[in-house]
């Protein structure tokens, strides 16, 4: 026979929806800001809680959303809640130093998501529904403190901006919260491809 015996489509066909739904099934998980909270939940052992936190910390620099300025980062995560992992604006990341670019900013890890098994815990970030901030307010407290009441802290979310929960504790979360995050960078420019296709067909 000169043709294939059996072919299928996984993404283009109608089976797609069912498959995607299976992957994303909600599951029981713990949202915690500290190991103590995790232990108090009486759902996980202390060592499980500690290891989940350590795993999330390890993931954090890889999966946290990245920004090229403190302002951009704080607009989404709140004043005082961002840090530059390479020592702030004085030192630059290895990546950007080589090309003379700017520094890299990312939100602080504010908690962690513990699942059924070790090894898939995720760092969590707290979104900020910001009101426009005046600079003096941002710099109001010593050591980068911030004035509460200037905006409101939103829910807990993963590095991929998947909304996980509004409160800490053991609860049902979306399966997509555990989708493994990939390392991110920050884009400095877009739109450098595609201009030649404006009017002509490109396939053959």
């Amino acid at each position, binding site marked *: *026979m*000169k*043709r*294939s015996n059996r*072919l*299928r*489509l*996984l*993404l*283009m*066909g*109608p089976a797609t929806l069912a498959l995607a739904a299976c992957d994303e099934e909600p599951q029981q998980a713990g949202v915690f800001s500290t190991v103590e909270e995790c232990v108090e939940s009486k759902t996980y052992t202390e060592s499980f809680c500690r290891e989940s936190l350590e795993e999330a910390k390890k993931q954090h620099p890889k999966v946290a*959303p*990245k920004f*090229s300025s403190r302002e951009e980062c704080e607009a989404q995560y709140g004043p005082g809640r961002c840090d530059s992992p390479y020592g702030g604006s004085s030192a630059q990341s290895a*990546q*950007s130093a*080589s*090309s003379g*670019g*700017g520094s890299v900013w990312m939100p602080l890890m504010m908690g962690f998501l513990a699942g059924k098994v070790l090894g898939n815990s995720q760092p969590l970030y707290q979104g900020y529904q910001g009101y426009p901030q005046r600079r003096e307010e941002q710099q109001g407290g010593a050591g980068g403190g911030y004035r509460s009441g200037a905006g409101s802290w939103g829910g807990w979310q993963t590095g*991929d901006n998947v909304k996980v929960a509004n409160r800490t504790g053991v609860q049902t979360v979306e399966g997509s919260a555990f989708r*493994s995050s*990939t*390392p*991110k*960078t*920050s*884009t*400095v*420019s*877009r*739109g*450098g*491809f*595609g*201009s*030649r*296709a404006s*009017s*002509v*067909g*490109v*396939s*053959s």
Partner: protein
Amino acid sequence: MKRLAVTPRHDWRATAERLGFTFHTMYGEPYWDESACYVFSLSQIEHDIEDPTAELMAMCYAVVERAVGDEEVLHSLAIPETWWQPIRDSWQRGDRDLYARFDLSYDGREPARLLECNGDTPTSLYEAAFFQWLWLEQALERGIVPPDCDQFNSLQEALIDAFTRMWPDHLVMPGSRTLHLTSVGDNDEDHGTILYLEDCAHQAGLATTVIDIEAIGVDAAGHLTDLDDRVIKALFKLYPWEFLVHEPFEAHLRGPGAPLMLEPCWKMVLSNKGLLPWLWRMFPDHPNLLPSWFANDPGAAAASRRHVVKPLLSREGANVRLVDPDAPGGGMVVDGPYGAEGFVVQDLHPLPVFRGEDGRENHAVVGSWIVAGRPHGLGMREDDGPITVNTSRFVPHVIR
């Protein structure tokens, strides 16, 4: 080889739409046409199409091999000089190519002749690889075609297999092998082809992300990025290399931080009509080649009075001029934006004409598909005119 009128499946449109074939009708005209099919003998497929395709592909690779050591070739193809070294590096590193389509003029009797090689961005892939296969399965089930019909088509299997094997070790991240796929944002046909390739990549176990080519970004270190600010490690682009090399981000496609590209940049040598005169020069009088020259080569004076003039870089038949003093009007011309880089001249080998039951004259071209260097299937296109263009109808085939 003959053209057989058959009954279309009553539900083919619904089936097409359910399975992502959104471009079965283009510009109000049918593109997928199952009111007929082409019938080949097994010997025609194996001896006249499959074997010559394997041989032609080997000859194409020989031209690339020569090009990386001979600047005259790269120069003749109007490839920018900044890209000569990246092409050499890519070829010498063994970057694998995914697929290509030869357009052959074949009438069932004489040797098939290579009209051109679509080495970089061939479409009509989904139709040939999947929908044509599904048509035969259902046509057999419903008694639309005789029960002993087969088809030359292991394309999808070969694509999945190629995606599985193409991955160099240094790109394998723990738990993730992500392929980005890109095409221009507003083209249904290209987008459909991208989604199909995504499906194949997915079946090969790759994680996939589709992005419009206009949306691709770069980070401070010069890596390409997607809309989630992830670095693009491997990129399938349904977008011509000859466009990319002239666009603002082109430098990000060469050098150490560049993604693994599909097709690799050495495919520029095979997606250029200048390939044809080089094939003819290196393999003169090969039975599957047509005499071809660069238009500015004095040797082109030897071309037949019936010939075709094609731009080095052109797609979908654009700017092709067919010169035939014996034909009414002396030939025909397709309009288009190409031609600035120069032209080739190829002796005319008219496409065979198969008259339909409706009296229509169908000029038929054989699309012979290659995946990872091996022949894997066939797709027929037909047109009312002698030059195959973007809207030429796709007609299924059987072996019997």
